[in-house]
């Protein structure tokens, strides 16, 4: 257990380190001089040169990288060019909105998806099960930008029930979280269904049935607990990805989260903000990923990583 933990931490650290190199290099190869961008077009060449020196842009790439890592470890990833504030707190200020959206959509998807998945496995040859499976595939084949636009057209433009975009009230939250939940719902229904089917075929389930336990108890006590391990892993990975910002959904609904901020920063060439947001989302993803792996080992003693 201890060895697995150490191995996992080392692997995560390596991924983070590689990510820092990629992010560092990506921003260095992008067109446009950051010093010029900071000062605007009217700055004199002398002022730009001074700014370049101040930012360390006149040094060699390896030197710049070391400085970048050193300040990143101190929690300093530069200033937002647009907002003129330190980029780390600026990006973090958008995190609650992303957390709210991710939480509510995962909540919807889990509450609806797991029961449907279980029922469609226990009643696998029923018409309802076929419909559920079909809908799940459809959900995974539906682009969320399109679903978002269709929902806006129907519920905001035509019916005037809900606002098209915005943030702050429950009404604002409904359309974005339904849009985001839809894809997850398909995923959760499918995974739950296959996992439950898999467990239903195991010997110990047959034993439980053979000793006369009622079907419902077999399913809820013996099957579900084991099937949910894999479901949990998938949900965990999705949460990890969502917390980095649901770029498309947030853009469709102008939801002020990390994803929308990142896209705007890309358009505005606000590189320090892009850098911070991407690094933060990689960090979240890696940490959750490692955590899920460990959880897997803890929950299911049969799993061993060599």
């Amino acid at each position: 257990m201890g060895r697995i933990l150490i191995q996992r931490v080392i692997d995560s650290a390596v991924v983070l380190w590689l990510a820092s190199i990629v992010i560092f290099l990506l921003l260095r190869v992008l067109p446009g001089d950051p010093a010029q961008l900071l000062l605007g077009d009217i700055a004199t060449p002398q002022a730009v040169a001074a700014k370049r020196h101040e930012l360390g842009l006149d040094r060699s790439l390896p030197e710049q990288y070391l400085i970048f890592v050193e300040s990143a470890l101190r929690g300093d990833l530069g200033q937002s060019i647009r907002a003129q504030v330190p980029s780390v707190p600026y990006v973090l200020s958008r995190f609650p909105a992303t957390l709210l959206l991710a939480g509510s959509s995962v909540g919807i998807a889990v509450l609806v998806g797991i029961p449907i998945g279980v029922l469609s496995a226990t009643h696998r040859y029923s018409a309802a099960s076929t419909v559920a499976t079909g809908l799940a595939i459809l959900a995974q084949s539906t682009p969320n930008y399109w679903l978002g636009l269709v929902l806006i057209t129907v519920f905001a433009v035509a019916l005037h029930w809900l606002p098209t975009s915005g943030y702050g009230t429950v009404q604002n939250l409904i359309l974005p979280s339904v849009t985001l939940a839809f894809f997850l719902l398909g995923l959760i229904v499918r995974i739950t269904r296959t996992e439950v089917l898999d467990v239903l075929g195991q010997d110990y389930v047959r034993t439980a049935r053979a000793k006369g336990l009622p079907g419902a108890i077999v399913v809820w006590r013996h099957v579900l607990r084991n099937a949910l391990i894999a479901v949990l892993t998938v949900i965990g990975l999705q949460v990890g990805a969502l917390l980095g910002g649901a770029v498309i959904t947030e853009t469709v609904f102008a939801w002020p989260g990390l994803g929308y901020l990142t896209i705007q920063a890309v358009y505005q060439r606000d590189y320090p903000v892009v850098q911070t947001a991407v690094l933060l989302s990689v960090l979240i993803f890696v940490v959750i990923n490692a955590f899920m792996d460990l959880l897997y080992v803890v929950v299911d003693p049969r799993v061993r990583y060599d």
Partner: protein
Amino acid sequence: MSPQQTGPASAGPSVWRYLLRYPLGTAGLAVLTLTLIVALAAPALAPTDPYRQAIAYRLEPPGTVVNGHVAWLGSDHLGRDVWSRILYGSRLSLLISGVSVAGAAFVGVAVGLGTGYRGGWVDRAVMRVVDLYLAIPFILLALFVVALWGPTVPNIIATFIVTGWPPYVRLIRARVLVIRELQYVEAARALGQSTRCILSRHIFPNVVNPVMVVVSFQMAQILITEGALSFLGLGVQPPTPSWGNMLAEGRDYMGNAWWLTVLPGAAIVVCATAINVLGDALRDIFDPQLRSMRS
């Protein structure tokens, strides 16, 4: 003496016979084939030139008579025929997703074979790079590439290849790790065959089948993501029609011309669903253990 016969035979043509047992998968294949035919025959099928503008007939709803022909799916903000543009749009959408997926599979399979067979520190390093890819939000990586080199079709395809190979490495490597220990591989090694020959003749045929499953799921994903890039203004640039950029252009007229966004999006949904059900059937045929590939 031909050691490769010791391994399970490649599925070959029997795949198609198996597929017929899955009505949904067969339907998916049929829809996909139809879309491919439509894409190839677009010039013959389209009622009008997809680029011809008719400002007098802009934003006409489906079924209106425009310039003497019926615009079954309406006209867009420049009076262009939406049906013709959807037909032509299928070309780019299929071309981009098809070529990208082929490229990504080629790179991923090659890397997976090499790293799985070789093992050791190379394998560890490659797998960390794969982890890295999975950790960086794909859409942001794509945005970077396209922002840097411009949203041309070759660049978009290159982006999908560069970002799409890691799942194949995971899949292939895991199987190579098992197969390289089998006796027939050991026999080939003992006979002095080159690594290249062992990989291509003895290992590759036995690991390649599940690749088709990932190919189909990824193709649906790329079809959807191509639209997402267009939606963010970084996809194929207008006036060339792709389903994604038609939808993105139609967004400004959402309030009074629903067909401009709903219909190209519906084309993506139909096509992606067809590919996904086909992928599901293939997965059931090839390897039930692949079921969690979707995540």
